[in-house]
């Protein structure tokens, strides 16, 4: 029974503070690391590109979950912050010639500052009113970026030169693989930071605000500050993702950061599990794999190739909507909870609990 977290007796503070306690947890971590290290060697360029997209959106989803899942503030403006990050970084790279780390850092900071500003209505509003206020800020950011011709020099999109990885510009063949390592080396610290945030006083205060803001205030938490911090953190993550997306996709245009993007990110954390860092990643994987897997399925379907592939965008949209509705109805706490239940089932077998 040493595999179960309840059966553990800690004998030192260090052991209690560890993120993983049981042999089974450590084994799963080892398997995960092996998977992450092995992925680029077993996938072709197309699928590795999809994996890169998933890694990017996992960072963004973790950021959104900080705000929505852990602090309880609904935001429909995540796409806007992605756009701010992407354009800031792209402009700094192309016009001022900054290297990617500097421009991505600047983009993160600027998005975080803007996020705190957009979060100001959260001081007075909550629930659906806040959702509508953030929806409005999304529309405003979208409009500004779409109309401000100085941003793109009037052509509607920005070209970003291909990133030189380790001194030389990657050829098409090693491009996805190089980016995979780069993105992973950003994603792992970002996820670990989020995971550890909720073991700190700041993270706990965010959760207290989510659970009951008046009670949180009465034990001395500055509720307004906590909310704004959550907004800044979340949009900082979004800005980072935006900057990386800009450099990875090598072109930035406002169409990639619309309200639909915000909704997609919300879908990820709903499907993965609100208030769970791991859940955000499960959700990013699920939502990221849905369209390509549907495309594969459609290609497998006999006889109706052309007709089905013309309908594919609609099918993908419908599957996305259906997934959200079904998860909310059947398992509101998402894949994370499903996974936990599965672990319990096998852990307690042959007993029910």
């Amino acid at each position, binding site marked *: 029974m040493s595999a179960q977290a309840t059966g553990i007796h800690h004998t030192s503070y260090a052991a209690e503070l560890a993120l993983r306690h049981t042999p089974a947890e450590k084994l799963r971590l080892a398997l995960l690391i092996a998977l992450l290290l092995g992925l680029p060697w077993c996938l072709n360029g197309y699928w590795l590109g999809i994996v890169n997209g998933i890694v990017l959106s996992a960072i963004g989803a973790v950021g959104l979950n900080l705000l929505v899942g852990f602090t309880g503030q*609904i935001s429909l403006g995540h796409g806007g912050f992605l756009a701010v990050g992407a354009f800031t970084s792209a402009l700094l790279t192309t016009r001022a010639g900054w290297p990617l780390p500097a421009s991505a850092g600047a983009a993160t900071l600027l998005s975080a500052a803007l996020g705190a500003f957009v979060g100001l209505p959260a001081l007075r509003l909550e629930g659906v009113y806040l*959702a*509508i206020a953030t929806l*409005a800020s999304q529309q405003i950011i979208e409009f500004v970026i779409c*109309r401000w011709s100085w941003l793109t020099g009037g052509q509607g999109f920005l070209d970003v030169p291909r990133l030189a990885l380790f001194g030389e510009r990657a050829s098409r063949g090693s491009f996805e693989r190089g980016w995979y390592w780069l993105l992973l080396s950003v994603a792992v610290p970002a996820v670990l930071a989020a995971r550890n945030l909720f073991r700190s006083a700041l993270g706990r205060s965010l959760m207290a605000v989510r659970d009951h803001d008046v009670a949180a205030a009465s034990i001395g938490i500055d509720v307004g500050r906590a909310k704004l911090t959550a907004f800044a953190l979340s949009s900082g993550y979004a800005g980072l993702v935006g900057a990386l997306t800009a450099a990875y996709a090598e072109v930035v245009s406002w169409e990639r950061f619309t309200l639909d993007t915000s909704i997609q990110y919300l879908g990820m954390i709903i499907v993965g599990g609100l208030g769970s860092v791991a859940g955000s990643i499960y959700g990013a994987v699920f939502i990221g794999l849905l369209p390509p897997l549907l495309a594969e399925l459609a290609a497998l379907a006999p006889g109706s190739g052309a007709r089905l592939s013309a309908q594919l965008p609609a099918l993908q949209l419908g599957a996305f*909507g259906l997934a959200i509705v079904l998860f*909310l109805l059947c398992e509101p706490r998402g894949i994370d909870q499903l996974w936990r239940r599965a672990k319990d089932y096998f852990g307690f077998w042959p007993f029910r609990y």
Partner: protein
Amino acid sequence: MSQLLLLGVYGLANGAVLALAALGFVLIYKASRVVNFAQGELLLLGAYVFYTARVALHLPLLIALLLSAAAALALGALIERLVLRRLLGEAPIALVMVTIGLSALFRALVQLGFGTAPRELPKLLPAGSVALGAGLHLPLDRLLAIGLCALVLGAFSALFRWSRHGVALRAMADDQRAALAQGIAVSRVYALAWGLGALSALIGGVLLSDITELSPNLAGFGVLVFPVVILGGLDSIPGTVAGGLIVGLVSQLAEGLCPGASQVLCHLLLVLLLLLRPHGLFGEPRIERV
């Protein structure tokens, strides 16, 4: 001057349709405290149901109208029964997301069934124009649309004021527990609210597709519902009428001055209003008790 008047009529027509869409939204919010992000998609579905009945099935106008009205009522009640009732009492984020999920699903259904190209719908409203004095021609269909919207809004208000179900709805919105104690069936009132919400969206959708065009872009109109309802107060029916007309006018005038500015202007207005007067122009201020 005449240009301004023309823009005004266009704006009022859009505003009247918006008021209809917002009416359904407010009904649903009042009865069940669900913010329906799928209101624009209900508009879209309504328009396409009517299109199917009228063009694909070649039904006479009156029967097509009645049939699509019945379909809208059934659809609303079905959404409530199958989805929303199982989420009663959940956190706002779950309710917001489930309607967002439904909206994606509806948009996908319309795309699957009808494609993305605009469809030709035989005109309901006469296309001529009314001459008003020297050189001033007002489009007849917009004027009629405004009139029809006023009629429908009036009918809905009368329903709430005098009918048994309307009174039950208002009682429910006023105080849920007191309403329960009076023997009002919650589930029936929720279903009614959703049915009527879908019905008003259907009427709005048919009118809108008649004065503009029938395409999946109709759903984009739904985003404008939010400024309307916040302006009017989320729970006020007269407020939606005022809000709809204001937003319609402002966006049309802004569009006339600078194309593309309408959306952003409405949303700026919305943010300002949320900060200064969160309960809207006509809504009731909420008192929070711990």
